[in-house]
């Protein structure tokens, strides 16, 4: 139960100054909720089912007698999960400026479309003749992605960004093996997302760092220096994780190709350049597209994502199965490597055909925007990020000087020097102001990094309030009001959580024998 200690409110709805305890521990709209296992009952169920028909069991000796799972009736389930939902911040509640995560608005039309029985209630292994419209949708989305990226081929099945990275790098590996040109090293700039080196390592590659130059971008010279006959590919994020467009990207791609290597572009930040430039024109060989970022499929508290990968001519034949082939008005799904005519797929990455539910949402988003709206969205995203930069540049510090950014703006912690306030404190204080914190301590190359991505979904009024609040936090950090930051959050339903304890004595489940506190 929540009780105030240390004389400060623990509740967002606590009215700010009131610290009088309540009998229940609840704070008006913020209601404490135990675990399912503490409120449920194994004899209860919220689903009414008929008696099974008479039958002779065919389970042999393998029948199960007990599980231990508690159940709840429907009204209890509604309350349990509604109360839990109220303990989450969400895009629909306020600005969620997580850099490189692209927390843009999730249109509800897309939810409605994904739930049409013709999309949501069809089986991946029905006869293909009974799912022609579904195959048409996949083919249509693929065509949009190819036009927006200027690439030659696409694999739709990867389930998320990292799965897409694996897909692209696997296709590159397969292409080189097919040429009898096995290579062992992948170049990854230090500013890269952790999935890049992890993906390369998973495929057996050694990772070689490429340093950034002083302005936060990668120089063609540094790449040339790192290239050699052992280098299979470079994995480069563009726009990069510092929020900057790699302005020498074409020269980098040329150098990579000259060395017989390929260019994997991490498309996590594609949202900044949709309709403004095509990766195919930049010399990219593979790029994954996070449909859950750029094309607004909901993040859902950590997935499901969807990470289709587009390919250049050189790599496209090695794309995995399955894929859809269009023949006039008829669509065929190629499901096995043996059935792939004229191609050399590297294999299959997942059962079935990819994240169809996400495809429907992404296509609904794209069709709603159209070519004009997609470009406008990118422009607004970049405009909003630069507006935040302009509003904060005189009070916060930028690691590479005050220069135009793309869809996200990067600050470092120099402005907090000697204040005793850290990036973490600053981020947690944003919670008290009603904002989700920005991405912090990433990219790793910048000390105390704070990466802010407002997206195109924010109005000017919303940004003005955000900027004013951050300016006030800077003032507090530099003045006599540090406790506002160092102890933050003060107004969230939970104070800071002890992550060290969680990792040292992992309690990963509720346990029936003992109270959960002592389960491990």
């Amino acid at each position, binding site marked *: 139960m929540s009780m105030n*200690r240390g004389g400060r409110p623990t509740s967002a709805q606590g009215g700010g100054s009131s610290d009088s305890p309540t009998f229940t521990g609840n704070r008006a709209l913020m209601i404490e909720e135990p675990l399912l296992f503490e409120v449920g009952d194994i004899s209860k169920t919220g689903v009414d089912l008929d008696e099974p028909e008479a039958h002779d069991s065919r389970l042999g000796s393998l029948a199960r007698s007990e599980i231990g799972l508690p159940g709840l009736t429907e009204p209890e389930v509604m309350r349990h999960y509604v109360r839990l939902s109220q303990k989450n911040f969400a895009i629909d509640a306020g600005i969620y400026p997580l850099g490189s995560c692209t927390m843009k608005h999730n249109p509800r039309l897309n939810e409605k479309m994904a739930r049409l029985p013709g999309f949501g209630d069809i089986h991946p292994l029905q006869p293909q003749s009974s799912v022609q419209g579904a195959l048409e949708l996949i083919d249509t989305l693929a065509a949009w992605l190819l036009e927006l990226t200027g690439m030659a081929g696409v694999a739709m099945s990867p389930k998320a960004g990292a799965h897409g990275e694996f897909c692209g790098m696997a296709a590159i590996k397969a292409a080189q093996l097919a040429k009898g040109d096995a290579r062992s090293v992948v170049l990854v700039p230090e500013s890269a997302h952790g999935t890049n080196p992890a993906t390369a390592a998973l495929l057996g590659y050694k990772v070689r760092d490429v340093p950034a130059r002083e302005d936060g971008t990668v120089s063609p010279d540094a790449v040339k220096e790192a290239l050699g006959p052992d280098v299979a590919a470079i994995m480069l994020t563009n726009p990069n994780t510092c929020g900057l467009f790699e302005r020498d990207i074409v020269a980098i791609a040329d150098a990579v190709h000259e060395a017989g290597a390929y260019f994997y572009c991490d498309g996590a930040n594609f949202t900044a350049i949709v309709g403004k430039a095509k990766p195919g024109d930049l010399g990219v060989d593979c790029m994954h597209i996070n449909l859950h970022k750029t094309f607004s499929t909901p993040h859902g508290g950590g997935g499901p994502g969807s990470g289709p990968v587009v390919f250049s001519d050189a790599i496209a034949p090695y794309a995995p199965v399955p894929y859809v082939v269009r023949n006039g008005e008829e669509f065929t799904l190629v499901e096995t490597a043996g059935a792939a005519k004229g191609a050399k797929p590297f294999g299959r990455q997942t059962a079935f055909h990819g994240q169809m539910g996400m495809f429907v949402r992404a296509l609904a988003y794209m069709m709603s925007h*159209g070519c004009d709206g997609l470009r406008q969205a990118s422009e607004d995203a970049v405009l909003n990020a630069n507006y935040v930069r302009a509003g904060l540049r005189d009070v916060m510090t930028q690691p590479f000087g005050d220069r135009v950014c793309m869809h996200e703006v990067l600050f470092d912690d120099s402005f907090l020097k000697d204040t005793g306030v850290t990036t973490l404190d600053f981020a947690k204080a944003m919670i008290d102001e009603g904002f989700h914190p920005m991405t912090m301590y990433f990219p790793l190359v910048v000390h105390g990094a704070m990466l802010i991505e407002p997206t195109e979904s924010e109005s000017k009024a919303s940004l003005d309030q955000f900027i004013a609040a951050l300016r006030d936090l800077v003032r507090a950090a530099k003045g006599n009001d540090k406790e506002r930051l160092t102890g933050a959050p003060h107004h969230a339903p939970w104070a800071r*959580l002890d992550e060290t304890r969680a990792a040292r004595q992992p309690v990963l489940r509720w346990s029936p024998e003992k109270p959960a506190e002592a389960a491990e």
Partner: protein
Amino acid sequence: MRYLPLTDADRQSMLATIGVQDIGELFADIPQDVRLKELVDLPRRAGEMDVERQLGAMAARNTSASSVPFFVGCGAYKHHVPASVDHLIQRSEFLTAYTPYQPEVSQGTLQVLFEFQTQVAMLTGMEVANASMYDGSTACGEAVLMAQRLTRRTRAVLSGGLHPQYRNVVEMLADLTEFPLHALSADPAGDEDLIGAIDDETACVVVQSPDVFGRVRDLSAISAAAHEKGALLIAVVTEVVSLGALKPPGEMGADIVAAEGQSIGVGLNFGGPYVGLLATQRKFTRQMPGRVCGETVDANGKRGFVLTLSTREQHIRREKATSNICTNSGLCALAFTIHLSLLGEAGLMRLARINHANAVVLADALSGIKDVELVTPAFFNEFTIRVPGKGIDTVEALARKGVLGGVPAARLAPDQAGLDDLIIVAATEVNSADDRETYVKALQEVLS
């Protein structure tokens, strides 16, 4: 544009504040010669009604599972999902939140994940579970890699009863990360010698039950044999409702369970998104892939939850991480947890009995048809029949009669011998007696 809040006046005043003349200056880092001068070659913006019309037309060309007698399974199953599940997962606070990196304002998602991990552990009979994987097939692939880390061996043995597309995922990993794989031939008759395939180099043996043909298997002897050789048993479950009726893998010596959770809470969705379950023993926790949620306290001593054991993960460990996974399947895990909370033990066990009963009644009726043979004597809610001629042709002929009668085994593994005349048939609680009768009649007509 209805999703873009900025007005033209806002844009002008913001550009002035930034100190640039026009939006083009903000894109100046893109080299001039690759900057697009024109709009890309795609349709212009469309209103809600227009999008609904266009996508609705595509949707209408598909035969939905609820609209016909439906018996298709093989790793994805048509079950009834209570209305409250879909209502709850569409709450903004769940739907539009990110991965819960800021636990003070993410306890809703985190407590759900803790409940999910507990439910998965209970259901599989294992000690711990992670916060979900992309789907069952990728969970299976990750389980093999996990077993390799734990045993410091590389050879994997796959049962011929493993779903062929799961097998393809492991084959792809074996090809590209170069480890030895011993995959047994497709095994509809259930007489493979799996134990004989386990040697001293083996990291893991992967067995599915109920297997892709529907056969339920006792894993005890296989796990004992694997452990004797220092190998681990990975149990795969593609129909998780079966765990309401069958002894769980944890009680038969499984070291890792990789399962598809779609049957509980998640619709068919033409194959995705689904939710992969990965459960194991406590001692193997630190080699588990993927996100994990753990219990802790806040600065005031109040119980709360956080993502934990992140030193396994790519954002900390980079190239030394246990996997490259960043995302789980959060919203599908939520749907799973809510649906399973509604079912509870009592509901799940009854649901499983209904599934089994419907399958037994259907199997008996179908195998009563002349020249149709039941191949799998022990099964849960899915079984395999042998028909005269090609299974693919029979399934197509049934579809023309308005019955989606199952999956021809040869569709999944065209390169495997002996599957041409087999059809894998699933029955669940959604099938009425009328549906079954329609199926039997249609099959009689097709075969006569």
